[in-house]
């Protein structure tokens, strides 16, 4: 099984061209027997992973069954959010369990943040080359 995958920075808004390049990455999220493939934003400034409401519904998640509430900040502060644990697969890397703040907000990308995406993967950004590399975390922790 691969230990590293490389992805390009994606132009998020053609009207802005190069300056809008962001580290979006394809990831398959799975809840029980259902899975969806999404483009997720790697966001080192985000304390948590964030899942938009519609993505959770597509996975068959039921809002009322998620009983652990969390309070987000910034633009998402006014929307309720609940904890949802999924399996995530990136390319040929080993699947990992990812915990998301499932927000009622719709106009938000899937965000991969410190808890727990960056705890599970080591990522190198090469912005000048419009590339980033995602590695399965080392077994030996520093």
């Amino acid at each position: 099984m691969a230990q590293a995958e490389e992805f390009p920075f994606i132009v998020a808004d053609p009207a802005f061209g190069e300056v809008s390049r962001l580290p979006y990455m394809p990831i398959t999220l799975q809840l029980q027997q259902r899975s969806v493939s999404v483009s997720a934003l790697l966001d080192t400034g985000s304390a948590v992973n964030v899942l938009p409401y519609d993505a959770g519904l597509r996975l068959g998640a039921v809002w009322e069954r998620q009983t652990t509430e969390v309070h987000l900040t910034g633009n998402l502060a006014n929307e309720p959010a609940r904890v949802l644990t999924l399996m995530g697969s990136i390319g040929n890397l080993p699947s990992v369990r990812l915990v998301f703040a499932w927000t009622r907000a719709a106009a938000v990308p899937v965000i991969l943040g410190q808890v727990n995406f960056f705890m599970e993967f080591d990522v190198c950004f090469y912005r000048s080359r419009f590339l980033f590399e995602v590695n399965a975390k080392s077994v030996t922790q520093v």
Partner: protein
Amino acid sequence: MSLTELLDTARTMCRADRIRLVQCLVDDLAREEGISSLEDGHAYPISTPLHAFDAAATMLAALGKTNTET
């Protein structure tokens, strides 16, 4: 107006206006090249939940519980 006349006029302007003039020209050129920078007065939403450490701690605890159960 020739470039020489334009420069002479620009040099009579105050420092702040000269900086604004340069910014306007750079923005115009960038827009023409399809590499526009941030626009004045435009709202850019940021979805990043910065410093949402309370949520992070709750989520880690929930994840730990899930890992224990499976």
